[in-house]
């Protein structure tokens, strides 16, 4: 992707590479910014440094084994990936998980959303040079990680999903500790909301920066909190409810300013909504089984599964040919939809704003990286495996 100025470059311009290794980007993406002094006048993006071939690997593993591979697509939203996969496979097999399992899935998804947003707040604060806020938000995030460890036995890859339901039940004590954590999170979210709205120095770095109107957000196809900060109410929990969201109406948090501050506020306000959802869930937690019986071979067919990840819409296409392994799984993560907006927004901004703009979309490169070839003006070509391999090797170089 590129939004570089015309080739008639004056000698005063020079390019600043950000990535594939750079302290602002802990993940390997490559941005090349053309700057005039401190002002950015052009941007190019190159992806593919963390392409792990997961989509290829899933077709040589069984349906059960893929659960754990796909959970590891992303290190932060691990639950939501396996949830999307499970929803798709269950749809193909015609199995409905028991209500208690669906409630637990949503509970974990909402806890994960809170932990993802807190993590993001810390990273964004770090990029703004606000180390104290970074430390505080990551400290508070530990509460949720500890909760995950208590419920599922692992802090990051919870593996709570299984085909046909969930693996772990909630005990009465765990419900108490979840409620306690939710209370703490609400208190902290109130504090951070006040901070983000009122801190004058942080305000200078985020207010009115990277403003994206609702029309622009529509045109660039951004998803998740980035879209909601521009007043575009895209949220799959409302548009196409899945699991227990069918019973619990979600209030979409909208901000209309569309600047970086709005993206901060939207995410923090979503934490309140997550807390509310968790409370409602635990008040009406259905009793019953955790798993429905799943066949080992999934009937032939294809389906799509869409869920609202913390970063936006996550899309899975699953195709089965009736064997014990999938024939094709295609996934699209929200980061890819949002990255294009960074290139458009950064033109004319200060170099110092760029990491903030980039982080404003909450990018996650390793989940995002696919081999993508964009055809220009109908110029079609077909790649062989050999060409793919060469491309991969060059990307590494």
């Amino acid at each position, binding site marked *: 992707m590129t939004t570089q100025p015309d080739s008639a470059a004056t000698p005063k311009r020079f390019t600043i590479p950000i990535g594939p290794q750079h302290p602002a980007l802990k993940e390997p993406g490559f941005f090349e910014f053309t700057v005039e002094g401190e002002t950015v006048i052009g941007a190019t993006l190159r992806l593919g440094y963390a392409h792990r071939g997961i989509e290829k690997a899933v077709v040589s593993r069984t349906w059960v084994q893929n659960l754990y591979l796909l959970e590891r697509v992303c290190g932060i939203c691990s639950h939501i990936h396996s949830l999307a996969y499970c929803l798709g496979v269950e749809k193909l097999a015609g199995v409905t998980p028991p209500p208690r399992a669906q409630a637990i899935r949503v509970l974990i998804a909402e806890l994960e959303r809170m932990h993802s947003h807190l993590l993001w707040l810390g990273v964004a604060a770090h990029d703004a040079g606000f180390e104290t806020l970074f430390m505080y938000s990551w400290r508070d995030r530990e509460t949720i990680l500890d909760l995950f*460890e208590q419920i*599922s036995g692992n802090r990051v890859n919870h593996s709570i999903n299984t085909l046909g339901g969930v693996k772990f039940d909630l005990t009465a004590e765990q419900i108490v500790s979840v409620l306690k954590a939710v209370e703490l999170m609400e208190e902290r979210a109130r504090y951070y909301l006040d901070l983000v709205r009122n801190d004058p120095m942080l305000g200078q770095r985020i207010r009115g920066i990277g403003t994206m109107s609702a029309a622009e957000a529509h045109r660039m196809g951004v998803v998740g909190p980035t879209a909601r900060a521009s007043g575009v109410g895209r949220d799959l929990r409302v548009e196409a409810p899945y699991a227990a969201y069918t019973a619990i109406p979600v209030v979409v948090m909208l901000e209309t300013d569309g600047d970086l501050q709005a993206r901060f506020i939207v995410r923090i306000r979503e934490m309140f909504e997550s807390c509310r959802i968790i409370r409602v869930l635990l008040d009406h937690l259905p009793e019953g089984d955790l798993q429905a019986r799943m066949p080992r071979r999934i009937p032939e067919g294809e389906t799509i599964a869409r869920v609202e990840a913390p970063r936006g819409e996550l899309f899975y296409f699953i195709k089965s040919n009736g064997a014990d392994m999938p024939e094709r799984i295609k996934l699209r993560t929200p980061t890819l939809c949002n990255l294009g907006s960074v290139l458009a927004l950064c033109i004319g901004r200060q170099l110092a704003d760029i990491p903030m703009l980039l982080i404003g979309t909450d990018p996650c490169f390793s989940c995002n990286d696919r081999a993508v070839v964009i055809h220009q003006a109908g110029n079609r070509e077909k790649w062989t495996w050999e060409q793919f391999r060469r491309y991969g090797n060059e990307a590494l170089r």
Partner: protein
Amino acid sequence: MRISTILGMALQSLFRVPATRSYPQERTPSPERLRGQLRWNPEKCTGCAVCVKDCPAVAIELLEVDKAAKRFVLRYHTDRCIFCSQCVQSCRFKCLSLSNEAWELAALDKQAFTVDYGRDEDIHALVEKPASTDDPPRL
């Protein structure tokens, strides 16, 4: 207008115990469900090998000593295990479990990462047989 919104919280932090946990001097007890090293109970195993089939990381091998007498040795590769507990789920006879105690698994040599579970005489019988050193087929 306030100059800094975080001042109060920062000054409070001065008088609070730091959030840092100074592991290993100070250990928090691991939760009951923590997924640590795999444990195997040979008494109930029927040798169906569903665990081997379902393991996403090829971390389990079920070695036969005497199939008719249901005598097996379970060779477990800690270094490959991703602690997903799928094997525990898959086992219909409840002979697998993940320990919540054994989670500090770092070791200096690779041998520590291969654990044989089973009755002592079965493991002995296995050692006396020329063991195949080949890695199991990778996925």
